[in-house]
């Protein structure tokens, strides 16, 4: 699969040095979730505050945004549930994560020598995944209440209000995670963006960031490079 790299730049390691971190299916489902989430984020913030209503204008106006918001939301939820299928077992939080959790302040300060080796996903990534997954479920349930608000009888008026409350709270929880996720994937961890777009990472990258996973995959059918 590393052969699919079309234009290796001179600085790139030779192709044999690259290993697959995310296969095509994982990357596509991540993209679908991204598209769904970004649309809902922009339009949701437009409905949230009059000062952000221009976000709805750039995607076609308030009424258009309102029409598509729930459909893009469904796309996000479906893609997220599919990612649970793909990554659920890798995302299981184990006892080994305890040590990583304790060392998180070192990770944040980039003192990576003091951070225990991580598997395919480190504890922070797992927390983010479950935040987005349960956030998506809550957004779906409360979103259905907002989408079909008139189907909730007036005698259960409190349910309409609860739907607003849950939707807003869950949205802000995911926004917090989303901001950190984008920052880390794009800026803080070089190589992260390329991994989720093209799928490949260098052996050095894998060894440094996810050593347990690296050892696991290099023991497999892939011919060992150095050892």
């Amino acid at each position, binding site marked *: 699969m590393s052969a699919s790299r079309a234009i290796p730049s001179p600085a790139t390691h030779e192709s044999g040095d690259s290993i697959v971190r995310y296969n095509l299916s994982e990357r596509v489902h991540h993209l679908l979730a991204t598209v769904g989430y970004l649309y809902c984020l922009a339009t949701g913030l437009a409905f*949230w505050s009059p000062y952000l209503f221009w976000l709805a204008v750039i995607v076609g106006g308030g009424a258009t945004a*309102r029409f598509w918001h729930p459909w893009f939301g469904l796309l996000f939820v479906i893609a997220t549930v599919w990612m649970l299928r793909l990554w659920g077992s890798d995302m299981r939080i184990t006892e080994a994560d305890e040590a990583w959790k304790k060392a998180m302040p070192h990770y944040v300060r980039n003192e990576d020598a003091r951070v225990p080796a991580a598997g395919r996903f480190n504890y922070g990534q797992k927390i983010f995944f479950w935040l987005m997954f349960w956030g998506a479920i809550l957004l779906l349930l409360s979103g259905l209440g907002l989408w079909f608000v008139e189907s909730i009888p007036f005698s259960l008026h409190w349910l309409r209000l609860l*739907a607003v409350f849950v939707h807003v709270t869950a949205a802000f929880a995911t926004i917090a995670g989303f901001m950190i996720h984008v920052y880390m994937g794009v800026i803080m961890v070089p190589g992260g963006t390329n991994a989720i777009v093209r799928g490949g990472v*260098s052996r050095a990258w894998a060894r440094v960031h996810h050593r347990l996973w690296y050892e696991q995959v290099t023991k497999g059918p892939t011919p060992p490079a150095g050892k």
Partner: protein
Amino acid sequence: MSQATLQITRISGHAGPVPGAGVERADQVCKLVDTTTCIGCKACEVACLEWNGYEFRETVFDNSYQTMPETEWNYWNLIKFNEHEREDGSLMLLMRKDQCMHCADPGCLLACPADGAIVQYSNGIVDFQQEHCIGCGYCVSGCPFNIPKFNPQTKKMFKCTLCSDRVNEGLEPACIKSCPTGCLHFGTKDDMTDLANKRVHQLKEHFGFSQAGVYDPPGVGGTGVMYVLHDATNPGAYGGLPKDPQVPMLVRFWKGPAKWIGNLAMLGGIFGLAFHHMRFGAKSENGGSEGGRP
């Protein structure tokens, strides 16, 4: 129904100040519905449909004279019929004309996120401007009277306009004009309050309705539609009229402090991440297979 000739004192979902904010007009318009003289003829329902150009249609029969269970997007005026058993065992047929209450402090307007989709004129009328409505239904959550209704074809919300187009031209609302018993009155809020109090006095002194009273709930700042009730202590008997309607606290929080908490949290997050990058930078280990380390 845009009525640009009336000054607008409140605008939904509006960023920044409202041109007519704080404007006080001496005369607030008001409908007075005297439920004690209503005969349930439904002339007001028909007049509302005729003036606003909607078709009459099949009624929903539910062992009652009531046309349908609740108002609909193209049926803004509905008389609610309730059989009520009094303490002495005698029956009363209570009839209350249900429509938008035109609250002085409208929950729908507060909840609405679309700029200018709901406005309040200086004469007190709360009006939906469908050309700005995005059809989100937040007004449904904000209204304590279950009034805004969704048109699935146009995906816009509709409700009684208090005939703002007629009132603007110096006419009374269509329902008022059609009432054969004179149980519907229209005028300034002050005049209607006087009239209502006189009628309540009459009901107490001459008709033995010791609990008679005026329905003008303070929880929503008073309403542009007032009722005279035989028993003001039990408004629920009149088709579920809420006893103490309020703009939901959650809507007030959502549209007030929550905005600032949420927006500051997001700004704080952006600054926090920028600060992290300035202080700690990117991870230094070489990993980026393409243009990784600086």
